[in-house]
């Protein structure tokens, strides 16, 4: 493990970016609740998650098959989401009040 030490990131810098991202999303949420702002907030959350994943969980130094695992997992969840949209969001045959 120690041989990979030099690949480690500057944790304080990553932390700084994360805090800044949090501040930005809070500021955005205070400004408006429109769909674009919500989308921006989730985009920022994704960036934050990406930073934690790569620099704190060290995905950046893992072998390729771990990266494939992460991408595959997200793909699986995306498939689940897309497959369910017609039935759960649009609700075919929806009744009044349901």
């Amino acid at each position, binding site marked *: *493990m*120690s041989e990979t*030490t030099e690949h*480690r990131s500057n*944790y*304080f810098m990553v*932390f700084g970016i*994360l*805090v800044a991202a*949090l501040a930005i*999303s*809070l500021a955005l*949420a205070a400004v408006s*609740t429109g769909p674009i702002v*919500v989308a921006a*907030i*989730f985009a920022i*959350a994704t960036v*934050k*998650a990406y930073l*934690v*994943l790569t620099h*704190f*969980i*060290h995905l950046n130094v*893992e*072998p390729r*098959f*771990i990266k494939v*695992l*992460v991408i595959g*997992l997200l793909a*699986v*969840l995306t498939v*689940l*989401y897309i497959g*369910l*949209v017609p039935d*759960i*969001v*649009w*609700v075919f045959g929806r009744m009044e009040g349901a």
Partner: protein
Amino acid sequence: MTNSAIIEQPMETATELPNSRMAIWWFLASEVAIFGGLIVAYVLVRLHHPEWGEYASHTINAAGAINTMVLLTSSLAVVLAHQAVEEGKLEKASKLLLTTVAFGLVFLAIKAYEYTHELHAGFTPVTNLFWSFYYLMTGLHGLHVVGGMIAMIAVSRSVRRGEHSARVECVGMYWHLVDIVWIFLFPLLYLAS
């Protein structure tokens, strides 16, 4: 596994990835699948119910924001603990782990304050589906926080004795995942109102 090794050298493996880290990756994958399934379900049902924005405005944004900050800081502490292990400073690593546990306690305390506040305001898990999802998701996340804290106390004790130092990284990876889950829960349940 002997007491003499200060910094454990992981067993040679076919992929160069130590068994423990490999297993933690798969464990994290299964956790993501569980939380991911829950989040997918929540997002879908929420999109079907635009009126939930109203309910979400009753969650306490400030508490959620502080908790995000708390978890981010605790993540920094635990990654520094891992760095300390790599540098051979086991005493420091142990202390940093306990710091992380302390942040976990702060997180739970704030969460408890929120729950009390919300329950007093009459928002119980059966008030409506939004609150069911809210309590289920934050509750499940809270259980993961508690589990992580217990694990970190155990690891911090053994690291102080010079054993199982590789476990610092494992418990850290898990803790970061708990952090990532919160990074998404915060906008999902608090901000998007």
